């Protein structure tokens, strides 16, 4: 089920909210668990079993790890849980990629599985892996209450597209959490804001990207419009989803990790990755990069560590070479920033640094969205006039004028400008009293406009559902 659907907004959510707040605390996890099962089964009924198996192995192995005094046995148990999790992920997500490459190299015709990727598998696998590793490391106590553990692993706000919430962060909240008027309001506000980002902005940019892909009147300008639109689409799509997840979590009394912090204002790629998909990059940092030695090793090993982590980050996003290349592209940029021009990225001209980051990020997302490496090469080449297309075309001009305002809103909205203005007028300024009425009116109006967009059945996929 999608957050941005009529089914979720006007059928599922009201019922869940009603039941959740009517039930006494001891039943609240049960309500969330059942709701999460329905939420997942609505889109992937068969894969519910797979998810449950994955969760149960994490739960039982976690208990065994804690229950054993033998550190070697604990290590084996932890490793076995990781192997199980990665085997499931590898089988469902990477098997066909592996076969395709074997076929290519050996000229064999091994059959493909051609099975649909289970929704959210990359996210819940990482939830469970972080849990068993943390139990092994003694960072958290193993969860004895199976209901609480399943609620953690399946919590519908963050189940299918993150943020990757670690058990350690919400272990306490699973057993005791506060529900307050302020939490409920702030959560609702965050949810509506995320929904607006997704439905009004990301989907509209998605339509523009589709128009570009369907067009036979391409030009250099049109390639850049597409590249910028996709860069905005993926940001609003994913950060919108994270906002909705964090907002829903807040309503139910949970505090989830922030996942985005205005990544497009970064002045270096290093800073960009501190602001983009924070829960994923911190996961790889804590569970791959640091165990490999992090930066406290020789220069050669440090570079190796960066390459491994970013290749895995790319591969996590999808079973295709362009994702791996996308990860390595960032690895190389990070290495260059670290070892070749560290001062320039720290003290360089702010405008130039910002342009440098955005151009490289835009190119990276063209690579990210390509169906193949050859298409990525062709798209990026066309952006720089390296193909036989004109600089401007009628369609490019039309879509630039038609989507101009939306692109401006999208670009401005990816900076903290609106937040700063809001804080100035609504929280500290004289307009604070006005906002007592204005803010709820704006939120309700947004919800109605979003409903209008949804009812009209426009373009509505979540990009991160395929990861």
């Amino acid at each position: 089920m999608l957050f941005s659907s009529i089914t979720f907004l006007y059928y599922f959510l009201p019922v869940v909210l009603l039941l959740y707040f009517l039930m006494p605390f001891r039943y609240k996890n049960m309500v969330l668990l059942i709701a999460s099962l329905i939420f997942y089964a609505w889109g992937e009924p068969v894969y519910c079993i797979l998810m449950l198996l994955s969760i149960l192995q994490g739960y039982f192995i976690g208990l065994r790890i804690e229950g054993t005094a033998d550190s070697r046995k604990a290590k084996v148990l932890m490793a076995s849980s990781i192997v199980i999790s990665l085997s499931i992920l590898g089988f469902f997500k990477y098997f066909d990629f592996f076969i395709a490459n074997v076929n290519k190299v050996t000229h064999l015709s091994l059959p493909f599985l051609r099975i649909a990727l289970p929704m959210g598998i990359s996210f819940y696998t990482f939830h469970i892996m972080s849990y068993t590793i943390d139990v092994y490391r003694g960072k958290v106590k193993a969860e004895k209450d199976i209901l609480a553990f399943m609620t953690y692993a399946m919590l519908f706000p963050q189940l299918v597209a993150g943020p990757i919430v670690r058990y350690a962060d919400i272990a306490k909240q699973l057993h005791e959490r506060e529900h307050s008027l302020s939490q409920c309001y702030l959560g609702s506000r965050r949810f509506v804001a995320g929904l607006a980002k997704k439905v009004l902005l990301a989907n509209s940019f998605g339509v523009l990207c589709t128009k570009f892909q369907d067009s036979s009147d391409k030009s250099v300008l049109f390639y850049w419009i597409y590249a910028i639109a996709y860069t905005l689409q993926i940001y609003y799509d994913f950060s919108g989803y994270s906002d909705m997840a964090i907002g829903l979590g807040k309503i139910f009394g949970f505090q989830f990790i922030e996942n985005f912090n205005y990544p497009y204002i970064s002045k270096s790629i290093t800073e960009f990755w501190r602001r983009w998909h924070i829960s994923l990059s911190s996961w790889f940092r804590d569970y791959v990069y640091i165990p490999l030695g992090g930066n406290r090793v020789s220069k050669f090993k440090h570079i190796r560590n960066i390459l491994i982590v970013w290749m895995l980050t790319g591969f996590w996003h999808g079973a295709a070479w362009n994702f791996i290349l996308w990860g390595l592209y960032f690895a190389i940029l990070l290495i260059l920033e670290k070892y070749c021009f560290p001062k320039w990225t720290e003290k360089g001209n702010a405008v130039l640094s910002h342009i440098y980051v955005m151009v490289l990020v835009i190119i990276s997302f063209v690579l990210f969205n390509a169906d193949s490496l050859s298409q990525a090469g062709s798209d990026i080449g066309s952006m720089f006039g390296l193909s036989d297309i004109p600089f401007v075309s009628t369609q490019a001009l039309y879509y630039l004028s038609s989507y101009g305002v939306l692109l401006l809103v999208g670009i401005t909205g990816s900076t903290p400008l609106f937040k700063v203005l809001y804080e100035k007028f609504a929280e500290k300024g004289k307009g604070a009293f006005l906002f007592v009425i204005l803010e709820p009116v704006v939120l309700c109006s947004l919800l109605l406009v979003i409903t209008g967009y949804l009812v009209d059945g426009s373009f509505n996929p979540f990009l991160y559902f395929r990861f």
Partner: protein
Amino acid sequence: MKEKLKYRIGIAALAITLFTGSAINCLKPQAEFSDSERRQLKKHPEWSFGSFLDNTYGDKFEDAAMDQFPFRDEFRRIKSYTLYDLFWEKDNNGIYIEDGYAAKLDYPLKEESVQNALTSFRYIYDTYLLGGSSKIYTCIVPDKGYYLAKQNGYPAMDYEKLYSKMKDGMDYSGFIDIRNMLSIKDYYKTDTHWRQEDLGQTAKKIGEKMGIGDSLSGNYTVNTSKLPFYGVYYGQSALPLKSETIKYLTNDIIDSCKVYNYETGKTTGVYELNKLSGKDPYEMFLSGAAPLLTIENPKAIENKELIVFRDSFGSSLIPLLIEGYSKITVVDIRYVKSSILKDYIDFDNRDVLFLYSTLLLNDSYSLK
């Protein structure tokens, strides 16, 4: 204090919006048809374990939830206003408004589709007309985009190429170009079609090219329907465009003609006025979509017949040609297979006119 008040008002407002929407959704009886969109609405699917497991139930439920949403048209209108007035987007669902005329973005030229149409027409020529004594003509009706799109900065199909391809591909027929006879004012503002009351001169030109120009009097009485007309783009644009009026032309000959519909077996007049109050009032012209019709002119001086292969644009033009013929057979090969036409039509020594719009030629895969 102020914050607490804001929280209370905010939660109350959002809860009322969400729960009211939810309650109306659950209680509202399901609608069958959307008048504005002119289509059947999807209804909530019956639950079955099989449909749940194969993942079709959820998709169908969401489709129905969107279609059955209370105040659907009003919500679609909110979206249109947001798109046009807030984000200044130029089209909504591919419909744009220029000078008060709603039109569809129809680009690029789909050459495969044009070729598909040419193949269909060639089949008719090879099967029924080749070697016969029929005089064959082709007339392509420009859609509104021809007069509206390029001039106002909207992407447009390559009309010149389309006309050239059709002319070259139908070298067995005389080509009648009517583009200079028309302007955007000859079309409805809210609909795809042209206005019959403006087609007198166009019909005359076609008639002259077909050798019946002298028979067409050009004298018509203009009749105006009192019912408001909202065209197909009214619903698609979801904007409150003004209603229009349908006008239709009559004279003694048109009034005396009888139209036989092979599909329904009914005989009617040229205009079915009761359809003016139906879901698509434009269907009043020659009964709307019909695979095969004949129009008999009892006042014809000579026995001369015409066969017209057409789309919906033909419905309002063909009545204006009847003065030149004793009988016109009207064929829509979107609804009848070309291969069975010999069972119904005698092609020998008849005039034949292929009358198709650019809209259909650019999306011709419904031709059978």
